[in-house]
């Protein structure tokens, strides 16, 4: 067994288990903690894929900003524990789990037994250079400058919207 496969298995297991834990914990704060763990495992996987910029941004933006915001709101509202996840044994919830499982099995089946149209024969050099800050910066500021500006406007609109929504008291 080589080292990369070992790392992949560790990160993948952490990601899978933490995502499962996230939706099954009754306490929302604990859920958030597992989601943070999941984001770390994903950052590790991004590093394995030579995407160093995305890996660091994943930690700075997702773990460092978005999840802190979630935790802030959770602590501010302090909603306490949700009653049992499958409370009242509503059949619709089991149906939901069934549907999700079927979707996953379908995708997995296609990937494993489907026609192998994608040959995983990556060009290491191209892969390494495509993940660096320089490459992504050049792409964003030349080819994708208009989407980038649009994203800036989106953030501005979101900031103003969030301010108004959180400040105003609906009568």
């Amino acid at each position: 067994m080589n080292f990369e496969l070992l790392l992949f298995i560790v990160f993948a297991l952490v990601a899978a288990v933490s995502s499962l834990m996230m939706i099954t914990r009754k306490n929302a704060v604990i859920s958030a903690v597992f989601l943070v763990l999941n984001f770390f495992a994903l950052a590790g996987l991004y590093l394995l894929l030579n995407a160093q910029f995305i890996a660091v941004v994943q930690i700075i933006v997702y773990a460092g900003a978005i999840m802190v915001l979630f935790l802030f709101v959770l602590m501010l509202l302090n909603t306490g524990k949700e009653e049992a996840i499958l409370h009242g044994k509503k059949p619709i919830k089991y149906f939901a789990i069934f549907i999700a499982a079927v979707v996953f099995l379908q995708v997995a089946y296609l990937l494993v037994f489907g026609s192998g149209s994608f040959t995983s024969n990556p060009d290491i050099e191209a892969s390494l250079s495509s993940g660096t800050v320089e490459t992504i910066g050049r792409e964003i500021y030349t080819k994708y400058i208009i989407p980038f500006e649009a994203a800036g406007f989106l953030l501005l609109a979101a900031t103003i919207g969030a301010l108004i929504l959180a400040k105003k008291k609906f009568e």
Partner: protein
Amino acid sequence: MDIWGIVIESVVKILFVLTIMLLTVSYLVLAERKVSAWIQSRLGPNRVGWGGALQPFADVAKLLLKEDIVPKAADKTLHTLAPFLAIFIAFSTYAVIPFGPPITLFGREINLHLADVNIGVLYVLALTSLGVYAITFAGWSSGSKYSLLGGIRSSAQMISYEVSMGFSIGGVVMMASSLSPVDIIESQSGWMWNAIVQPIGFITFLVSAFAETNRLPFDLPEAEPELVGGYHTEYSSMKFASFFMAEYANMIIASGMIVMLYLGGWQVPYIEKLGLGSPFTQIIQTLSFFVKVGFLLFFFIWVRWSIPRFRYDQLMNLGWKVMFPLSLLNIVWVAVVIMLFN
């Protein structure tokens, strides 16, 4: 280059840096007490050892012998995890800060930093943005009102000041056109220190560093008069000591960051004109790094005992309405400087 040479070099460097960090942290606590005593015309600790020189070890012994209390209402796992997280994040940040020029020892070139990460600045930014988790977890998991308030305050404060911190670093990265700490230090040769070229960015970064390390005048997460002890109200024994050490380790890292980004790192202006041999130059440069960090640490303590604490709304106003626009202004200023002089 044999593999064992690299392994031994790394282990020696890690041990060296860890020892230096632990010693500095323990003596920084003593320095804080001594300086505060001096500012307030008191004597300060002077009983243990020679003039109080062994006080840190007495403190550690006292904390180790205390009972470790976990409140009944606490979430046990997170309550235990938080202090370790705090100290782990604080110590791992130091890996990328270079504290001296490359030196030649036993016939091999040795870089005076633990890891040369080509995106080192982003690495530091990522880790400092995680520091808030230790405090938030501690505040939430303690099951106490005061701790919870401390955790809420700290998460809002850290997010707010991270923005201006990131933008200030943006100016530095623009000047160096690199994210590697070594390149950033080398771009500040002579008197081209970033503190002189971009004073606004220097000030915003300094203020944000105070806020990120939870030091006065921004220590609202632990404000003693209002919140008892804030997020570490419910901690005792070594867990409390871990938070305490993490706070001081964060101060050292913040000082190291300021020196690296704005005060030229280990650069001493015009040292090559003196015509000293290469080992002497390198020794002076390495020492100059520690002197700069030491002065900044003194500055941290000095400010703590001189300026009163902000109110929470003042803190938010300062962060969003003053520091954030100023750091944007700094970006524009750096862009103009680069356009004019390149």
